[in-house]
C-alpha cells in the first residue's frame, strides 16, 4: 500500500515536471528552428515548425553584421588572458 502510494506520488511529480518541460521547451525549440528559416518563412508563420530549407548562412550573416568577432574577443578571451597573466 505504502509502495503504491509512493509510486503514485512520484508519477504525479514527474507528470507535473513533464508538463512544464513541454511548456518551457516548445517555444525554445521553435526559436532555435526559426533561426534557420528565411525572413519570409518566419513571418508567414503557420504550423510548419521545421524550416523548409535550412538557412545556415543566417548564422554567418549575424556574426558579420553584429560584429560578434570583436565583441566575443573582448568579453571572453581578453579578461581570461589578463586574469591568468595576473596570477603568475
Amino acid at each position, binding site marked *: 500500500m505504502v509502495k503504491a502510494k509512493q509510486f503514485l506520488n512520484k508519477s504525479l*511529480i514527474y507528470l507535473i515536471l513533464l508538463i512544464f518541460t513541454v511548456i518551457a521547451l516548445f517555444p*525554445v525549440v521553435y526559436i532555435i528552428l526559426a533561426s534557420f528559416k528565411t525572413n519570409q518563412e518566419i513571418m508567414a508563420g503557420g504550423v510548419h515548425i521545421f524550416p523548409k530549407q535550412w538557412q545556415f548562412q543566417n548564422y554567418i550573416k549575424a556574426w558579420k553584421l553584429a560584429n560578434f568577432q570583436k565583441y566575443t574577443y573582448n568579453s571572453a578571451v581578453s579578461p581570461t588572458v589578463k586574469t591568468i597573466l595576473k596570477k603568475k
Partner: protein
Amino acid sequence: MAAPGSGTQDAGQGLRGRILLEGTIHVKRKTTKYSSYTLNNSIQEILMILPMFIGFLLFTAYPIFWALRWAFFEYDGFSTPIFIGVENFIRAFSRDPTFWFTLYNAFLLALAKLVTEMPIAIVLAVLVNNKVKGSSFFRIIFFLPTVFSIAVIGLIFSILFSAYNGIINELLVYFGIVEKNINWFGERWLAMFVVLLVSVWSTFGMVMIYFLMGLQNIPRELYECAQLDGASGIKQFFHITLPMLSPVIQVVFMISMIGTMKMTDLILVMTNGQPGGGTEVVMTYIFKYFFQYGDATVTPSQFGYASSLAIITAIFLSIITFIFLKISTRMKEMY
C-alpha cells in the same frame, strides 16, 4: 610604569589594566590607536563604495534630478523650455483619464503575474529540490526561457498566437476545444492574457531559482522531525516550507511587483498597446510621450508632461512598496 599596549589585540585588557594605574593619557592613546585603525578601515570602505556611488550619482541621481526639473516645464526636446509650474500635474490629474487607465492596466498585470507565477515557481522549486532523479536536468530546462531576449520572445509568441495560422489556434481547433481560430490580440482581455502568459513564461525559471536557494537554507532536521511526528508531505509544505521561505517570498514579491509595473519592452514588441490602447501600460504610455519612433511621425515629444507622469508613477510605486513592507513585516511577526 608599563608601556602602553602594543597591539590592538591587547587593547581591551591592556586598557582595563592601565586605566586604573595610568589614567587618562593611556586611554587617549588607546583611543587614538583605535581610531586610526578605524580611520584606515573607513577610508578603505569609502574607496570601495566610491565607484558604485559615482555610477549611482551619474546614472541614477542626475537623471532623476532632471526629470524632477522637466516636470515643471513644457519642453519638446529642442526649443526653449517654458516654465509652467504645476500645470503638467493638474493636467495629469484632471484631463488625462488614459494615464490612470494605463496605471490600472499595469497594476492588474503585476497582480495577475504574481498570483500566477509565485505558486508555480514555489511548487516547481520544491519538486526540483532533489525529490526525483534528474532534478538538475529539469532545473536547466526551466531556466532556459530566461536566456532569450524579450524582442525575440515577443516576436515568436506573436507568431505562435497568430489569429490567422498560429500553432496555438491550430491545436485548439484540432482538439475540438474551439470551433474557429481565436483572435488573441483582437480583444483587450485576450491580449492581456497572452501578455501575462508570455511574461510568466519568460521569468518563472528565474523565480524558481530564487526559491530553490531559499529552500537550501531550510534545515533538514525540521523535515525529519515532522516526518517522525507523522506529518504528510502536504502538511510539511504548508507548515514548514512556506513559513521558512517567507523572507524569500517577501523579496521576490516586491521585486516582481515593481518590475512588472515597469514592463515596457514586451508590450511594445507584442502588441504596441493595441487593440485600440487596450494593452497600454503606464510605462509604454510615458515612453510614447518621450520618444516618437520612426521617421513618418513628426509629432513633437512632450518631455515636460512625460516627466511629470513618471514622477507620479514613481510616487505610486513607492506607496505600494511601503504598504507592502508594512503588511509583510506584520506577517513575519506572526510567524
